[in-house]
């Protein structure tokens, strides 16, 4: 299981692959179109694509002759959901801290005897 997740993170660790993914976010593209801006061979781009494909980040249609590369955006929805959940868990933790801080306030106010005063 962990291997699948690692594959996604490893695929996105490379700046060229991240750039390819960013460009695919707007529209599908062929290998040639993807390779155009880079100073690398088609083979190198194909290699990058293979890594992205194996991570499940992109797919290539089998039937169309151009075989355009398609971004599997759901994987990124998942990342967004993870960040949202991380945020939610942090928020829940801090709300528990809010409640604790409020209780500490009460405790301090419950000890007027030390001052010899009653509120």
């Amino acid at each position, binding site marked *: 299981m962990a291997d*699948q997740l690692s594959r996604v993170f490893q695929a*996105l660790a490379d700046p060229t692959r991240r750039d390819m993914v960013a460009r695919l976010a707007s529209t599908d593209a062929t290998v040639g179109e993807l390779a155009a801006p880079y100073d690398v061979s088609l083979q190198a781009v194909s290699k990058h694509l293979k890594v992205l494909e194996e991570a499940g980040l992109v797919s290539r249609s089998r039937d169309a002759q151009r075989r355009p590369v398609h971004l599997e955006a759901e994987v990124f929805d998942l990342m967004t959901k993870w960040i949202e959940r991380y*945020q939610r868990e942090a928020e829940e*933790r801090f709300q*528990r801290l809010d409640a604790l801080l409020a209780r500490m306030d009460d405790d301090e106010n419950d000890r007027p005897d030390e001052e010899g005063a009653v509120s």
Partner: protein
Amino acid sequence: MSALTSNQTEIIVPEGLPIIEIKREFDAPVDRLFRAWVDQDLFAQWIGPRGIGTRIDSWDCSTGGRYRYTNTEGDEEYAFYGSFHEVRENERIVQTFTYEGFPDGVALEIMTFESLPDGRSRVHSVSVGESVEGRDAMVASGMETGVVEGYQKLDELLAR
């Protein structure tokens, strides 16, 4: 307290950097906020996650000290440990953080505490990891119990 929801947690996960930044304000003076962080009995009450017990295994919250705590959920245990690099009262805590389930991973956490007007306070936490992948994995796991659920969802997604 009626204002429990007014303080929003701000989380910044910068692209391409192994950093998680968290900012949060509290309706309590900075000394009380700091105490909730350094007193092990108080810390165990809020660190969570919700509905899951936190057991403090060791705790020396002072410069050069260390800590270890365990979250238990049924038969599952998740333990975390680290060193307190610097503890400066009401101002700053610098510590390391490792989840024992991923022993090669370590983050450096720098927490700055700040007094605000009207008896309020703010904490600013910067967590620096070793790699962007490690940082992303930490966010993905929520550092807590969600990791299995996350993997299962990903498995389903990748299986399609």
